[in-house]
């Protein structure tokens, strides 16, 4: 079996050398819905938390059934979308890894041109200048080459005035020799989803400190300056025979207890008693719903575990995923302010 590079077997101190420091960089949220129209609660949160950056998901890039690469879920917005003039919008594009897999990834220059044209149109519509463009793709061995070529092409198309950033998952930090480092100016470290999905009631999939710890050893020496994204969202896992078969991302765990077709269990999970549609998903009788809620304590734990391991003395953006009334309900502004001030 080919061995992965042994990353940390060096006789030098890599971990524990840097000290936690208060966050001094910009504060940010991710906005991941497809229609941009901030609620009053969301607008108030941006203002009172002095948020200066909003990473707005503008579209996904996917491979269509006919094999062509296409955007889906193009952002639409209200005339009064509610993003203050002094808040920078960072268009963020999620790209399915399959787009770059195999020999059919196509021409990176063409994809870059189309991507930039679409982003520019949206930015004009929002009356915002694009200073940074973020790409979110969980690339792998088979897709790295295509993804990196696309990033280089995008850089050429967007020009030097636009900073490119890419989301970085912790496994990409740990195995960076194998996964490569994307050719962008900055990385956004996603401080979540390190674990696997598991139907075990005790298992946490959004953030699990134990699962995260092994990935942090070489964080400070990552070749890109890193911003950090912390979780404040919740979701519900649909579990069948112990396997997670679906994520109900739009479901607020608080809703579950009021559903007549769900029977609450002692472990905080719910059993589906009759097959029923629920938020667009057809739940099967005997399925289990496992709510996972990220409370501020967990977000703080993620921050305290990860941020001190990042390269010290760098001005970095701290972003919370994601901005929504649900998230703000669970994380009052005061606790989020503390998180921005002291947690990161």
């Amino acid at each position, binding site marked *: 079996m080919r061995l992965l590079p042994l990353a940390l*077997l060096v006789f030098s101190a890599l971990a524990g050398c840097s000290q936690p420091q208060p966050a001094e960089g910009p504060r940010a949220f991710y906005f991941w819905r497809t229609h941009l129209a901030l609620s009053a609660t969301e607008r108030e949160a941006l203002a009172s938390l002095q948020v200066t950056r909003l990473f707005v998901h503008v579209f996904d890039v996917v491979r269509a059934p006919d094999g062509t690469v296409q955007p889906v879920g193009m952002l639409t917005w209200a005339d009064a979308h509610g993003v203050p003039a002094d808040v920078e919008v960072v268009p963020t594009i999620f790209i399915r890894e399959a787009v770059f897999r195999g020999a059919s990834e196509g021409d990176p220059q063409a994809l870059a041109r189309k991507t930039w044209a679409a982003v520019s149109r949206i930015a004009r*519509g929002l009356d915002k200048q694009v200073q940074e463009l973020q790409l979110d793709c*969980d690339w792998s061995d088979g897709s790295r080459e295509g993804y990196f070529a696309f990033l280089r092409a995008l850089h050429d198309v967007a020009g030097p005035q636009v900073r490119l950033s890419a989301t970085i998952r912790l496994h990409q930090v740990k195995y960076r020799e194998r996964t490569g480092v994307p050719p962008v100016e900055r990385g956004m470290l996603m401080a979540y989803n390190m674990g696997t999905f598991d139907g075990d009631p005790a298992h946490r999939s959004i953030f699990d400190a134990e699962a995260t710890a092994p990935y942090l050893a070489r964080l400070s020496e990552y070749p890109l300056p890193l911003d950090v994204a912390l979780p404040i969202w919740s979701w519900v896992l649909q579990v069948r025979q112990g396997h997670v078969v679906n994520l109900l991302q739009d479901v607020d765990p608080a809703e579950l207890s009021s559903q007549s077709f769900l029977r609450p269990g002692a472990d905080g999970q719910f059993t589906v008693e009759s097959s029923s549609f629920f938020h667009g998903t057809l739940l099967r009788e005997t399925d289990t719903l496992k709510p996972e809620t990220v409370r501020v304590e967990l977000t703080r734990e993620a921050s305290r575990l990860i941020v001190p391991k990042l390269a010290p003395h760098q001005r970095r953006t701290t972003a919370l995923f994601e901005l929504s009334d649900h998230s703000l309900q669970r994380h009052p502004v005061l606790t989020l302010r503390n998180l921005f001030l002291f947690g990161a």
Partner: protein
Amino acid sequence: MRAILALLLLVPSAVWPCGGYTFATDTTTFDPSVALAFGPFDEGFGFDPERSGFGEVGALIEAENRAEWSTYLGPTVHPAEWNVILRATTLTELDALIFFLQGKTSTLPAGIGATIGAKRASGDPLSQKLIAALFFVGFAKRVEAVSNSLPVDPWDATPAKAKPSLSDAEAAALLKNGEAALARTSDAFLKQRYAYILMRLRFYRKEWPALHAFADAQGSVLSKPSASITWRAREYVAGALRREKRIAEANLAFARVYAGSAMLAARAAESFRPVDESDWQQTLSLARDDQERVALWQLAGLKTDGMVAMRKMLAIDPGTDRVALLAVREMGKVEINRVGAEALEQFAVERIAEPKSGARWLFELIAGHLLAKRGDSGATALLAAAVAARPGDAIVARQASASVLLLRAHACAPDPARQTEFAEAADAITQEYPKREPVMEMALRLRSESCSVAGNAIEAALFAVPGERSIDPATLKGVLASMTRPASTPYQKTSSRLTRWSAQTVRQTLALEPLSRGRAAESQKAFAAYHPDPIELTADPFALRFRDCVSCESEANQCRGSTDAGCSPLASAVLHPALAASSGWTSTSLVQALAALSTEAGRSGPSAIEAAELLGRAFYNLSPMGNSRTVMRQTYGLSVRPSVSLEWFVKAFNATPKKNREQRARVAFEAAKAELASLVPEGRRSQPVNPLPVPAKWFTALEQLADTQYRREVLAECGHYRRWVEHH
């Protein structure tokens, strides 16, 4: 983010293959196109988690539109010219063309082709028809200019707010003109199109009640002559219902479009979105009859849970064959998600037993496939029955052959007849079969496992993924022999064609296997016996470094010549120039040197001590922590255990006179490195280790040589040692 959804659907081994072998990306072994037997089946309806949506319909509509115009205008108007009119001509140019055809001007607008222009010159009776058509195109273009519909190319999608807005007065004028034209024309083709565009205009204006009223009033006009327009109009009605939040009615309307128009089915399926049980029950209650309820459940199954949907469909109509599409999708889900095979098999068996089953042969094929995958010989009869029920159906025959191969792969017996059956089954999988690659992959795995269970180690190895598990040298020799001997039976020929082993790598593995155990002399003999190609070492195997940044080597190699941001400065060859260049050593010369050193180390005196130290150093560098480990990477799964090098360092240290304190300090440090490497559990040697284990025995030995220059250098360079000293 959304990647996590994708993660759920991917097979881990396909994402991060651990070995040198590249796995098939597609892991499904059942061809969904068998569902073609039940009617038009767009490829997009097959289960493919890597692709989004069910299919693009824009291009189909475009083609249909062109074809309808071509039929309407007749052969004397060239379709390409008319397409220019539809797609590219401006309103001004259209007006100019109409004036030209009416004889009001004498100049044909630039870019308009000759066949259209000729209608004026010849006084063609088609001229009036063409003028009326051009008036319609002008009206449609005026409406489309303010529409927010998605164009054919989704990259060009301009958000609604960026389109010019239409004032109420302008909209009213457009509506008035359009309705006047609709009333005026007696041409059914244009009349239907005027009605359709007027409906679209109301849709863009979000005039939902007016749209419904118009659709009802113009029902007969919209229903002919173009079926495409009829269904597209109904799609707008459904869309309006969706926007009015009339979810139940909207879903029913989309389901009718899905059932009625093959061209629009993919888009209608995308738009069909039951939300909660209450709206879904309302949709079912609004359905006209059971067939419509069956169709609703089919769509629900496409969008969500096919198993639940199939049972609901059969509860309504036990003989329906509409479950076929869902059944093949569920087969794909079972194989990709690796869950639910039992439920699907149970369902298939029930369907086979059902006298009224409308798709019995499909369920025989599905059940046969599932049984074959787990080696149940009951698959044979089921697959044969499926093929017999579909004489001449090549798709079904190919799938059944694939299932038979998976069944035969389970039977690894020395019986020549069984072996021939396997060979024939493998040879029957032709290039035309779309799942050939994943089926062969699975067949080889199953064959390897069954041969292993049967105690046939050589064949188990021959069909295994090389390097996936360790294989003893005797078996490897058998593998090499079977690869190199002339094949005399069909089974041998097929086996040698299917194996993924490389004779060269097997030779490397056999030659280097003794070295992995520290036996250089044996390895030298093995080199002479197997003649592997020399492997070039990119790092000096006898070099000693304070800091073994083992990742730097691969990083330097990966980054050589690259401009990636991540390739500097740590990974640059400047930082580790020695690692990026050839060391001058090859595996052959290294083994020779190590054999000679082993002989020397068996003697006594300073040269024996030096030989032992060099052996320890070389074996350390060949281990997974060392900079020469690439040698072992070119074998099937060999690695040198750190304890081999530690033994040589211990020997060197013990033999070094106590007065040679500098030399003892160096060897003690080298032994500490080997001790540390030995302390890392074998399974963790490919991963970062935090905290690093402490090689207490040899750190202590080094500490006892605290007065040496070498120890001071270690103290300065090695943080791990320094911290240990500080804590002691």
